[in-house]
């Protein structure tokens, strides 16, 4: 005899996670399943399209992080044509990408993940939102967040054509050069971004780190998994969002493998379950050994915490200082506490802002040389970036005209899918006892996956409000016993 609890966001069916929790007779959790109920099939309908259109077509996977898909696709078509963009084009791409990172990470902290910490994980639900955050930090800050977002998104439009679905990436460069005047706008935006990032880390210090109860949450076993971690690193093993090699560290924090993006198929594999549309990535060298942690399980994590764990440091000075404080406070590298993602995200916010500033201040970004015309016959191309939510792979094969014959896409959240499923299961087991389910417990379970900033249908994370949930509790004959609503 078992009971089943379904946590299903009733209002955002497409692109949402769904959680089914099975209880045993004693009312304790047998197992919680985390499902993704969506599939659009971009891999299939990419076939037949011109490769140079992939940056624009694949950006439609996600209107929240279109810049990440646009950039991964653009790098894949560089590789496809074996063409290197001129230095200015590469810098413009990374400048736009850094701008996008600041805007995206800032939004997550203030609007979605932040409320759990800034307001408090078990605070009344009516306060656990952006308004609650503003209540804590002041309304002026809200205006600042909206203002910064607008300024940065306008900069992305300036360079990329449109912020929602940019158009500027081409094999061998970017479609439009920046003028000196454009560059000055980026300089101003970057200065603003750096100030904002410092300020955001300050809030985290004051509100979260100075509250022992919150630190206890971060460190609690309920939110901990000892797994592998993956992230892009530069030549010095520092975090990089746009380029570099992929580095994987083991649960002990030591380098497990480091490989160029081209070799991803040797190291990354996908497992299929019949009960979810999402595929579960694992390390091929370790193998799929179920939803388990430890060195014998190929499950790995991506996104902010994983990127910090997989690197030896940050590539910019202030972010590096924040990185050192992070590991000092949390007991050294690697950190396995999922909720530490929120802090790691703010360190990355600072890194992105500093990188944006470095690039904006480089006069070369205003160079008119932004295109290299491809000469090679296309065949196969692989592009990887770190999307805000984790490593993003685009892989295309084409005919000799550059028309896609096969496409393979591994999106950020897929890399994290197994770890997210484990986090939800563990949180449910740790928090539901004797059939007791209330709103606070549901939020604590939800926090387990919100920390990843999951991107199912790629819209879940970014907008004001919380993920709405409906919990239905069924008896063994599937008769509805009661419902708990979490609006």
């Amino acid at each position, binding site marked *: 005899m078992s009971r089943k609890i379904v946590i299903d966001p009733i*209002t*955002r069916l*497409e692109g949402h996670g769904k959680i089914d929790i*099975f209880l045993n007779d004693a009312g304790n959790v047998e*197992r919680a*399943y985390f*499902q993704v*109920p969506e*599939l*659009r*099939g971009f891999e*299939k*309908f990419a*076939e*037949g*399209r*011109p490769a*140079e*259109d992939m940056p*624009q*077509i694949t950006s*439609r996977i*996600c209107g929240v992080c279109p810049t990440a898909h646009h950039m991964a696709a653009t790098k894949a078509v560089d590789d496809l*044509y074996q063409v290197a963009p001129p230095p200015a084009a590469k810098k413009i791409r990374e400048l736009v990408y850094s701008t996008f990172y600041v805007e995206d990470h800032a939004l997550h902290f203030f609007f979605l993940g932040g409320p759990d910490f800034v307001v408090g994980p078990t605070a009344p639900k009516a306060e656990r939102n952006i308004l609650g955050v503003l209540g804590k930090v002041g309304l002026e800050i809200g205006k600042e967040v*909206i203002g910064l977002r*607008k300024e940065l998104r306008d900069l992305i439009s300036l360079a*990329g*054509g*449109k*912020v*929602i*679905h*940019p*158009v500027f990436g*081409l094999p*061998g460069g970017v*479609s*439009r*050069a920046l003028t000196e005047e454009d560059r000055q706008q980026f300089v101003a935006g970057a200065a603003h971004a750096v100030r904002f990032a410092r300020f955001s880390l300050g809030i985290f210090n004051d509100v979260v780190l100075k509250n022992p109860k919150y630190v206890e949450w971060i460190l609690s076993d309920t939110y901990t998994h000892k797994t592998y971690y993956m992230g892009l690193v530069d030549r010095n093993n520092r975090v990089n969002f746009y380029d570099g090699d992929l580095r994987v560290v083991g649960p002990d924090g030591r380098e497990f493998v480091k490989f160029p993006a081209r070799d*991803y198929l040797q190291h990354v*594999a996908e*497992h299929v*379950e*019949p*009960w*979810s549309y999402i*595929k579960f990535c694992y390390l091929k060298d370790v193998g799929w050994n179920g939803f388990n942690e430890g060195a014998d399980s190929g499950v790995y994590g991506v996104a902010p915490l994983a990127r910090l764990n997989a690197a030896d440091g940050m590539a910019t000075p202030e972010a590096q200082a924040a990185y050192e404080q992070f590991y000092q406070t949390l007991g050294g590298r690697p950190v396995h506490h999922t909720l530490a993602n929120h802090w790691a995200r703010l360190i990355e916010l600072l890194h992105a802002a500093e990188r944006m500033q470095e690039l904006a201040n480089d006069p070369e970004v205003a160079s008119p040389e932004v*295109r290299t*015309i*491809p000469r090679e016959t296309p065949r196969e191309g692989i592009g990887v970036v770190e999307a805000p939510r984790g490593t993003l792979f685009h*892989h295309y094969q084409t005919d000799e*005209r550059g*028309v896609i014959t096969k496409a393979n896409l591994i999106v950020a959240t897929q890399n994290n899918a197994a770890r997210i499923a484990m986090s939800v299961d563990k949180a449910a087991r740790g928090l539901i006892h004797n059939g007791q389910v209330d709103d606070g417990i549901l939020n604590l379970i939800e926090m387990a996956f919100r920390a990843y900033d999951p991107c199912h249908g*790629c*819209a879940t994370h*970014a*907008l*004001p*409000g919380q993920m709405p949930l409906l919990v239905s509790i069924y008896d063994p004959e599937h008769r509805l016993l009661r419902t708990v*609503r979490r609006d």
Partner: protein
Amino acid sequence: MSKPKVGFYWCASCGGCEEAVVDLAETILKVVDAVDIVFWPVALDFKRADVEAMENGALAVSFVNGAIRTSEQEEMAELLRAKSQLIVAFGSCSHLGGIPGLANLHHQAGIFRRVYQEAPSVVNPENTVPQWRTEVPEGTLTLPVFHDTVKSLDQTIDVDYYLPGCPPPVKLIVGAVMAILENRLPAKGAVLAPDIALCHECPRKDSKPEKLLIKEFKRPHEMLTDSRQCLLAQGLLCLGPATRSGCEAPCVGANMPCTGCLGPTSHVKDQGAKVLSALASILDSNDEEQIEARLDDIVDPVGTFYRYSLPASFLYAHPSANGGPQP
């Protein structure tokens, strides 16, 4: 007097339309003062049950984005239709099917095979594919059933107006909301954007030759594009002549051709057919073989001409929907 009630909803979409609404930033505050937003799942706590409890017609207007692929999306569209005086299809997917509508070139089984069995990173010796119902040791798990084809909103419910674009430009969104508030809407069925081709508001229109003739079609990565001259005159497949204006040509501003996301003007029933006729008329040749060779340079006619409008086109759906052969 109570304020008019407004709903926003999304179906099969990427979230970009929701972001576009958020991008209204301060502009939306003016609108918010004048209306009562009572249903917007992404931002507000009102739920389906709240909508179900409303009187029919209680909502002055609902903006619905995304295409229709699942039965759940159909149900929500029908519910909002019943409760709303006006339905506005918001964005390319809702208006014409959008880029995900290109999936109509394939059968669902083919999509599943590629994604779950053939993809080079997949290790799946038992050839597992996701199931609508799965028995696990603890009980039964279910997934939503996906239809074989992607539909536009008006292939599902009656639609009053359309806001075009991927995503709709901010200016058009504000214009539409103001038109509704001030009760100066055009005739039912109208697309709420200027009914004139994009070329007319293109920043490069003065460089478009009086009689445009081109020798060959080029692809944007193959050439260094002049940043002032008409893109079509340079041989790029710019869909401006077959696309509605209202976006102020940001893609052309970034030195890239229009890909047609606002759809055609009201004088055109099928955007792809219009593109084809526009291109045929500017091709500088009377030699049939030469014309054919030039058209062969267009490597993906269906995906280029119908980038956003395949489900709404005369080509419409997958052949199996009409009893035709399977791929």
